């Protein structure tokens, strides 16, 4: 799977699972699949300011 396809899929999933907008922006700028995983894991571990 190309990086672009992976990014598109990750963004689609992130939107479905209600990840914040800044995560979507970071995913758009991801340089490789390792980056994509790191961004999503970071988002899950980060505290939320409500």
């Amino acid at each position, binding site marked *: 799977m190309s990086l672009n396809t992976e990014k598109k899929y990750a963004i689609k*999933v992130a939107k*479905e*699972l*209600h*990840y*914040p907008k800044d995560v979507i922006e970071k995913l758009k700028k991801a340089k490789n699949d390792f980056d994509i995983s790191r961004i999503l894991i970071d*988002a*899950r*571990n*980060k*505290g*939320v*300011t*409500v």
Partner: protein
Amino acid sequence: MKHSIKLLFITIALIFATATSASALTATYTDLGVPTGINTSFKTYMDYRCVTNTSSPQYRYIHKWGWSDHQGFMRANGERDLGITDDYYLIALGSYYGTTIGTKYRITTDTGRIFYGVLADCKADIHTNWTNQYSFHNDVVEFIVDTNRLNRSVMRMGSANVYMPLNGSIAKVERINFIER
């Protein structure tokens, strides 16, 4: 004519009585404590069709009050007029937190998320730790879902923790009681 006026008065009286009884109630929260020293962010799920005993309170509760949201989680309507800001998730907990089907909880995670749950099934004591608080995956909360509609990513990861509104380790479990003011 006279009959219709009488009916109108009865309807108004009924509406007034219902509104009064609802507003006379207030929600109180009792902190029940959570296991310490373990990561409780893993959140398992089970399909609502796994409850098959039609005469059980679980089955009756799920089929009477449960509905599936667009992510596939089974939900029950929250009492907005009593300060419950969201609908309840149908959940299963260990017997430490109670075994009465229909008991309501407010659950807070360490990421600051708050969600409401209603006990629709119980975890068997043999499937939980010695305090009957969590199961084999250190999971305190198990969600009841409709697997036909469940989000594919949640299904692939095997945990509802990837779904942001439910994300985080369980930091607080409070039982909700509705008492008269």
